[in-house]
């Protein structure tokens, strides 16, 4: 029973934590982020299964996380009103080639970060961008101006 309860607690904590720290932290996977991910996984595992090395314990832990994820996903789908809270909303960061500073600041994005993402989409200049939207996944989608 303990593993299931711990699994639920850890899932809820991680979910709220990820929503609170912001999407910018989720969008990149630099070498350091990868190391952090491994460390995080190890720390979570210790709290989740502790000294339980059994197959049953592993099934319970994995099953709990899977069911919780399914629950969140279903709630997202079934109750659109809750979607902004559970998943967040996209944020417009560029409109008609102009940075929306307030939204950039909110996501701790610098113009350099933005242009780095733009170059990956073969966009060389801010003037070519009609809309740039930071998606809930943390990635930035670009819509070019017509004719660019």
């Amino acid at each position, binding site marked *: 029973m303990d593993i299931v309860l711990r699994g639920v607690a850890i899932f809820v904590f991680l979910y709220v*934590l990820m*929503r609170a720290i912001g999407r910018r932290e989720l969008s990149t996977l630099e070498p350091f982020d990868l190391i952090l991910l491994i460390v995080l996984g190890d720390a979570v595992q210790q709290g989740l299964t502790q000294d339980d090395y059994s197959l049953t314990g592993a099934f319970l832990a994995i099953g709990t996380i899977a069911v919780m994820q399914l629950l969140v996903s279903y709630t997202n789908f079934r109750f659109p009103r809750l979607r902004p*809270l559970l998943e967040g909303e996209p944020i417009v960061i560029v409109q008609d080639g102009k940075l*929306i500073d307030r*939204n950039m600041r*909110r996501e701790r994005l610098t113009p350099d970060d933005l242009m780095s993402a733009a170059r990956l989409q073969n966009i060389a200049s801010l003037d070519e961008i*009609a*809309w740039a939207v930071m998606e809930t996944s943390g990635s930035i989608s670009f819509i070019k*101006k017509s004719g660019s």
Partner: protein
Amino acid sequence: MSRSCAALAELSGVADVPERIVLERHRELRSPAFFRPARYAFLVALLALLVAGLANVFGQRPATHTVDTPRAKLELYAPSHLRGGLLYEARFTIEAHADVKNALLQLSPGWNEGMQMNTIEPGPVGESSRDGDLLFTLGRIRAGTRFRLFLEFQTNPTNVGRKTADATLYDGATKLATVHRTVTVFP
């Protein structure tokens, strides 16, 4: 966007607002998703959790409890806040002001319930039970000398909650000193 607006946008070279993007929500950030107080509240709570951790609220920094009586001083150095799985030590120091002919240390069940007792050093002369409590026979402690007893434990992960963990020093049937304490185990 209306047809005339779309045409105007095309003329000016600016694309229409992307589908499912609502400027009021996604540019002006008027949506519950951007409700900052909730985010800050969580971050403050997280920070408070870390500060509480630093302040030893969740263990396992040891503390000293001392009871001094005319015949002996009993000092216990052990953590009173623990977490599941932690290894820790309890150190008893007995200073005899007068001869203690048959020192006995009585520990309430909270000391062992949901705990692994890994070792006791030096091994007591005898171990038994008195009214459900653990009783260690330590033998004679001469006046002016000091006796140290080390107990090493590990907390079981399923052991959560608060327990009484008193320790009482006897000389035979005579009670000399009692340390009253509770142990809180966090999940």
